[in-house]
């Protein structure tokens, strides 16, 4: 079981990641990443 756990976790999280991509979350992350984050700079 201990040897299988990492593979189970990897499969589950890859599935979660793919689900997020299918919901269009890549675009959401991209939109945030390409604008200057004023919070990060300390003037937000």
């Amino acid at each position, binding site marked *: 079981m201990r040897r299988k*756990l*990492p*593979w189970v*976790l*990897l499969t*589950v*999280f*890859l*599935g*979660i*990641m*793919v*689900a*997020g*991509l299918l*919901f*269009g*979350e*890549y*675009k*959401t*992350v*991209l939109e*945030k*990443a*390409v*604008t*200057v*984050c*004023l*919070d*990060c*700079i*300390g*003037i*937000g």
Partner: protein
Amino acid sequence: MGAKDKAVRKPREKRAWYQAAFALGINAWLPSWFKGEIFQGGVKGVCVPVLNCYSCPSAMGACPIGAMQTAFSGLRFNLSIAEKKFGLYVAGFLGAVGSIVGRMPCGWVCPFGFIQELLHKIPTPKVRMPRFMSYFRYVVLATMVVALPLLIVDEFGYGQTWFCKWICPAGTIEAGIPLILLRVDLRPLIGFMYYWKIGLLVLFIGWFILSRRPFCRAVCPLGAIFGLFNKSSLFRLAVDVEKCTLCDKCYEDCPVEIKIYESPNSPDCVRCLKCVSSCKFGAISYEFLGKREVARDLRVKSPASS
């Protein structure tokens, strides 16, 4: 030694080069520095497995902690308009990386970990960080990254990125200072928050010089997430208790001051593998995808050298 076992041959002494190369690789869009803009290419939606501010002018990837806070801060608004955006992409990415290597990105490729290691080389009296402080990073993760962005929202349902705004010194170094230097139009916006972050950065730098990677151990929410996977990742460390003499050489060399023989897959371990090469008894090994690498027992002379 089994058929799959091999003597350690990776050049761990070159770890600093890997750290420098990755830092430059994910911040490679240098033209932005001359224009005073940030890189806006389509690849920037790809998360990097390290703390690297996406407002750094040359950053080519997305900081997963920034992206995660954005997801939580917009969750209530998205739910109110039935928008299916739950932060699954970032959560899945972090879980997948953690399931494969655990906290290894912290030790080998994180630019902010690299900065801390460089500053710690400044010759001053050093201070060991109390062990209980390592639990504080879970508090930071639970409050600044998850709870506050989710719970404290404006009239539209939007929260804030609390960790970026109030704490993250990586953002100050990589984005705050450079952008204020490059962009004249941003300078009138400087106020209390900016001075708070600069003051905090100065305190952190002092701490980096005195203690070994204190931010990674006591504050970093990304390290907190990856650390949760150390005990269940594909990459694992092991200690041969029959070979271990408890000499504490690994403890002395460890950049996060853990006794690897007590807990080989401790959530605090950044998996730099310094302990593997510092153990002259060959007691520490690591395993990945069924292959086990063992440290050479330096007490045993090879036939060639005898």
